């Protein structure tokens, strides 16, 4: 495993006042890039990752040795074509892949910050990542895109910086985190905090790891990323390496074994406190809150060309919630397209090989790029 200290990062000197009131400065932001920035600097795409993603959007993640989370989307001749576009992907603040987060070392105490990390929001994440434009000397991005929490960051980016991206593609997301989604996040957080090794968030100081809690959080969340039909088709009632049920609480069923495995590998790559902080940021996301609930006003005067994508079997960020963004943009006569892609793969569809999704994304991006003046 490569050392996490060797990954690319910038130290952001400019102070950032977080929504919670705390000001941070001189903090690291870890990032990765793919493709080349052209001379006009008009081919840059910023992709935002979801809850458990990181800056390694494609290719091999050097820390986990797994494929990047958007390997189907980003690469030569793929939907986001690295032969054409310069792709920037950063680890959100609050994350655990090199950006400023609970597992960063506090300069004064020399210990991990842990639960003393300030509570962050999607707005804070986006404002921190905006510094990368200056770092690469890019005046205006060609595109901002991402799915799930990444989609929320897309919406927040356009709201904060209306003239800094030509097109915006929020995927499988919502402009306001629903009660159901807050509930699922709370379930995950409670699982972590109920683990005796969590130690009120100071597990690092005591060399403990709330692995059980974090893995249960991941198992619960993982179910929400899939669809009933997808689960039934893949697992049904199939038994795990046995001919009949064993009348016990072992993983008799394949779905149980699968979820346990997903939980167990997650704890190797993700920090429990980061999970708390990032899910909290998602829960606090309510873009129209400062505009009396009028989402249209958030995007007033936007010149950005929007394309919103949802998936038929996504019940976590259902089409209706995505459509609310379309309706708000329509109400101000913004340039907005919308497609609900047919897929049985649930919320995870945006990460998977779903040809209708990948083709439409590619067509929209390439056509928009060719249309530039």
């Amino acid at each position, binding site marked *: 495993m490569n050392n996490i200290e060797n990954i690319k990062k910038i130290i952001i000197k400019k102070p950032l006042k977080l929504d919670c009131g705390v000001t941070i400065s001189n903090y690291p932001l870890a990032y990765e890039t793919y493709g080349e920035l052209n001379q006009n600097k008009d081919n840059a795409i910023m992709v935002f990752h979801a809850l458990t993603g990181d800056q390694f959007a494609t290719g091999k993640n050097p820390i986990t040795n797994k494929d990047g989370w958007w390997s189907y989307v980003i690469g030569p001749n793929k939907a986001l074509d690295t032969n054409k576009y310069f792709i920037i992907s950063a680890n959100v603040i609050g994350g655990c892949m090199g950006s400023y987060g609970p597992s960063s070392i506090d300069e004064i105490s020399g210990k991990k910050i842990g639960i003393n990390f300030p509570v962050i929001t999607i707005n804070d994440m986006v404002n921190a990542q905006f510094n990368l434009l200056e770092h690469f000397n890019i005046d205006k991005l060609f595109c901002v895109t991402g799915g799930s929490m990444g989609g929320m960051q897309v919406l927040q980016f356009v709201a904060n910086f209306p003239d800094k991206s030509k097109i915006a593609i929020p995927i499988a997301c919502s402009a306001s985190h629903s009660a159901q989604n807050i509930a699922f996040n709370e379930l995950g957080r409670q699982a972590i905090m109920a683990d005796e090794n969590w130690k009120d968030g100071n597990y690092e100081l005591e060399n403990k790891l709330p692995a059980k809690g974090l893995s249960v959080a991941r198992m619960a969340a993982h179910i929400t990323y899939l669809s009933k039909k997808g689960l039934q088709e893949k697992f049904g009632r199939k038994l795990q390496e046995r001919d009949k049920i064993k009348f016990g609480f072992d993983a008799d069923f394949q779905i149980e074994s699968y979820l346990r495995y997903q939980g167990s590998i997650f704890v190797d790559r993700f920090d429990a406190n980061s999970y708390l902080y990032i899910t909290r940021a998602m829960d606090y996301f309510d873009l129209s809150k400062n505009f009396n609930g009028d989402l249209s006003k958030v995007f007033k005067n936007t010149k950005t*060309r929007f*394309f919103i994508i949802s998936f038929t079997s996504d019940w976590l960020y259902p089409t209706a919630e995505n*459509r609310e963004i*379309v*309706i708000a943009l*329509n*109400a*101000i*006569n913004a*340039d*907005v*397209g*919308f*497609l*609900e*892609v*047919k897929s049985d793969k649930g919320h995870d569809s945006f990460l998977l090989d779903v040809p*209708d999704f990948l*083709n*439409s994304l590619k*067509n*929209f991006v390439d*056509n*928009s790029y*060719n*249309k530039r003046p």
Partner: protein
Amino acid sequence: MKEEFKIIANSIQRDKSILDVGCGDGELMKFIYENISKKIRGLELSKDNVQKCIQKGLTVIEGNAEMDLQQFPSNSFDYVILSQTLQAFLNPEKVISDLLRIGKTSIVTIPNFGFWKVRFSLLFKGTMPVTKTLPNQWYNTPNLHMCSIKDFVNFCNKRKINLFKSLALTNNKVSSINKFNLNFKNLTSELGIFLLEK
């Protein structure tokens, strides 16, 4: 391109904003985009067609006109196009009122149920008509509310909708409809093309 689309495109002034309701695979939109106005958007029910439009570089929203037109602000487009779709709605009356609200001008085309071949089929064959503009059988047609050119003209008159241009299309030949030739055009035309204002 279909003669009907040529007539619609010719009715639109340069660089005006257009909403094509039920834009299909985007053939008409693409022509307008390339030749008349870049400010064109579409609304389409079929996922396949939406994807074809995206492939053509067109801005399209997947949606159902009967539910989704209400989200568009009043007077937000110079033109709203509804090509041969009116008869497929559950509530055509509501769709027309939405069109008039959203667009300064609405362009509506209808397959004419008063066309002599249609009348002939029902009168002499005793079967539901199947023609070039009405290609489906009774059991698989998407059409719920067929009307004739005369029905549509009466509908507009009754609601005081300003029908400021009415055209008839038969065998790719265009002619004007007026109150003197209405009965004749209602018999001899395959398609009616209407320009409406509030």
